[in-house]
């Protein structure tokens, strides 16, 4: 994808794996290119933010989002992006804060959040957030009240998680674009308030 990455040792391993899979007839270079191009053309936290903005403005959509994330994503045109996994949206409340991790690797809903940040893939984040989430969140600049319950969701199966942050105090009267602009990728992961 980028000149810098192509020189890394892992890039050589990826290419070797690709060649084996292609030689086994399981896929083709063209198919892989098409998939990657589709993912990276459309994958963005703007997509997740649109879902959050809609949930903030429309309580019925919020209910559907929490009950069936894949169907709710499809309503906004993201069906193709969430096809490969079960999307589970977890809601922040004044009492509960949710944060996402994949301790085994670095899974997350790429189509709704964009390519994952390096810190999300780091051993440091993956090992520490399950052990000391409050301290890790503080390092991201998020200080939570002492009585806030923290739930850490480890995406070790086919489930991918998205956090539904608390709406801002001034949400009333904002249109959906303005609401979506208030939602960051870190808010969707849980390392920011929104």
């Amino acid at each position, binding site marked *: 994808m980028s000149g810098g990455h192509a020189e890394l040792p892992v890039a050589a391993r990826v290419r070797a794996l690709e060649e084996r899979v292609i030689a086994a007839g399981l896929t083709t270079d063209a198919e892989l290119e098409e998939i990657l191009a589709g993912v990276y053309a459309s994958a963005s936290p703007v997509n997740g933010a649109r879902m959050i903005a809609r949930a903030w403005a429309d309580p019925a959509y919020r209910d559907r989002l929490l009950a069936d994330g894949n169907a709710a994503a499809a309503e906004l045109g993201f069906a193709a992006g969430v096809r490969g996994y*079960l999307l589970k949206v977890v809601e922040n409340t004044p009492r509960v804060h949710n944060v996402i991790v994949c301790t085994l690797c670095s899974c997350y809903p790429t189509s709704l959040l964009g390519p994952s940040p390096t810190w999300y893939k780091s051993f440091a984040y993956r090992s520490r957030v399950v052990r000391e989430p409050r301290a890790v969140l503080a390092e991201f600049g998020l200080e939570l009240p002492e009585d806030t319950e*923290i739930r850490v969701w480890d995406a070790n199966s*086919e489930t991918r998680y998205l956090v539904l942050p608390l709406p801002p105090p001034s949400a009333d009267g904002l249109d959906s674009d303005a609401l979506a602009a208030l939602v960051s990728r870190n808010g969707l992961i849980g390392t920011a308030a929104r």
Partner: protein
Amino acid sequence: MTTRFAAGDRVRARPADPDGHTRLPRYVRGHVGEVLEVRATWALPDEAVRGVSRPEPVYTVRFGAAELWGSGLHSVILDLWESYLEKA
């Protein structure tokens, strides 16, 4: 597909250390948690990598920090295949 466990059940993640692929993280092995819900029915990854299709129930299980680490107030929640669990 019949489920061995239900929401509210206390379960223990098996203290296994398989040679091959698994999606049972080390930090929960041997620990007791609470089943929140039956998540889905999916092929057991440990067998799938060997070309064996073995669908089984997958449970969303919550573990308390004190149980996992000896201290802390937070919860860690993850999905565990039925083969990874035993009744606590």
